[in-house]
């Protein structure tokens, strides 16, 4: 009675899914049974015929093309992370934006610093008080602007990824989006406190989109994701982010 099935022979062929004792049994049976040997030979012929088929080959420029697209994707992703340039050294704390709790802490510290700056300008200014107040306000505004510009750069990268990447890309940026939501709220508060209502209003406008991106999950429906992408494409939010960022950068250059 033959107890070795074709499925056993398939596993035997791949030497996978069988324990050593079973392999030994099949070895012995193959030695003893010409019929089993014939069956196994047929299986080998069949599977070797598959090996005889040439592997699918892409065109000659394939690797170059893949790298070019990939390089652009990586660059876009890196733009969504804080830069490490000269100006960014001032913003070292904000580099922790990728770590939600640290980002929140950084934004809290900034809010505190700005509050103290304004308070100090109002209460401890030496004679003449108005000049000290103005200097303190200007310093606080410059610090806020620098942080917000960096925040907007990160936001721009996130929105670009959301508009262009796959669903997995959206889900992969959840933590970044969540950290930006926290920071965004604090910068909006800081902007209100410093009297920059235009910036505060714009940051509040960003919040729903950041929240939506922070809440993406692998289960999020395609319709919902497509809706978000349509919203980004139809509105000029991305343009506004860039414009605000450019305005802040330009103001920073004028004031230094």
């Amino acid at each position, binding site marked *: 009675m033959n107890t070795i*099935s*074709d*499925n056993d*022979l*398939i*596993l035997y062929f*791949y030497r*996978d*899914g069988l324990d050593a004792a079973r392999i030994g049994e099949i070895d012995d049976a193959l030695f003893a049974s010409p*019929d089993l040997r*014939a*069956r*196994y*030979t*047929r*299986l080998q*012929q*069949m*599977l070797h*015929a*598959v090996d*005889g*088929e040439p*592997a*699918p*080959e*892409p065109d000659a420029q*394939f*690797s170059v*093309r*893949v*790298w070019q*697209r*990939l*390089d652009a*994707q*990586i660059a876009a*992703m890196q733009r969504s992370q804080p830069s490490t340039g000269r100006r960014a050294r001032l913003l070292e704390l904000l580099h922790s934006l990728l770590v939600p709790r640290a980002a929140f802490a950084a934004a809290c510290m900034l809010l505190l610093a700005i509050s103290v700056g304004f308070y100090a300008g109002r209460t401890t200014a030496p004679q003449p008080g108005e000049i000290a107040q103005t200097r303190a306000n200007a310093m606080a505004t410059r610090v806020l602007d620098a942080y917000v510009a960096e925040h907007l750069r990160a936001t721009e990268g996130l929105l670009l990824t959301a508009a262009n990447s*796959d669903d*997995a*890309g959206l889900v*992969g940026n959840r933590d970044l989006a969540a950290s930006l939501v926290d920071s965004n709220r604090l910068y909006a508060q800081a902007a209100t406190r410093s009297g920059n209502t235009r910036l505060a209003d714009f940051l509040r406008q960003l919040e729903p989109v950041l929240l939506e991106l922070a809440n993406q999950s692998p289960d999020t429906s395609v319709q919902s994701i497509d809706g978000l992408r349509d919203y980004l494409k139809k509105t000029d939010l991305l343009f506004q982010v860039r414009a605000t960022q450019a305005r802040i950068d330009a103001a920073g250059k004028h004031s230094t």
Partner: protein
Amino acid sequence: MPGRRSQANRIRSTRIQDVMATDEVRWVAEARRGDRNAFRLLVEAYSRALFALCMRITRDSTMAEDAVQEAFFNAYRHLGDFDGRSSFKTWLHRIAVNAALEQLRRNGKHGVTVSDAGADDDGEDFLASRPDEAPTPDRHALGGEIGRQIEDQLARMSTLERTAFVMRHHEGQSLETIAETLSLNISASKQAIFRAVRKLRGALEPLR
């Protein structure tokens, strides 16, 4: 002489693999530190093999190319998660399998393809029913026809069967890895491979 040549080829091939492995470890380490050029070298080293894998699963060159693209991007983003327990190639190929399946899903082609499942899934032995016939010159001449038949049979497989078969047969992945990659248990992975092999028998039978 042929034996000596084949031994020399084996030694050369082993040396090439050793050099590749050393380079791979260095490139992966450098890429993890943010060196994009190192990652470019990994892309150059593996993109064509990844294309073959994705093409075998998707059976569509556009989807295969998009899957390779996505696989590399996902690999870059998750380089920090690569723990070195498997080789980088194995890790990358697993990502590519999922990227290929994602492409099929997105294009609405993830379902079971035309199948006479009743005949293929009966679990009965099929090898004994085929005539015992050694390859002949005539059959070698029919190589192109056999290739076409194999293609047809691969197309008849469900995505799951084809992916499990490609991973086991072409990629040499273990049942355990296949199960993990496809979110199946080992038994279901085996069954998918059994069904795939049963369907392949149809590629050769009409030519005998």
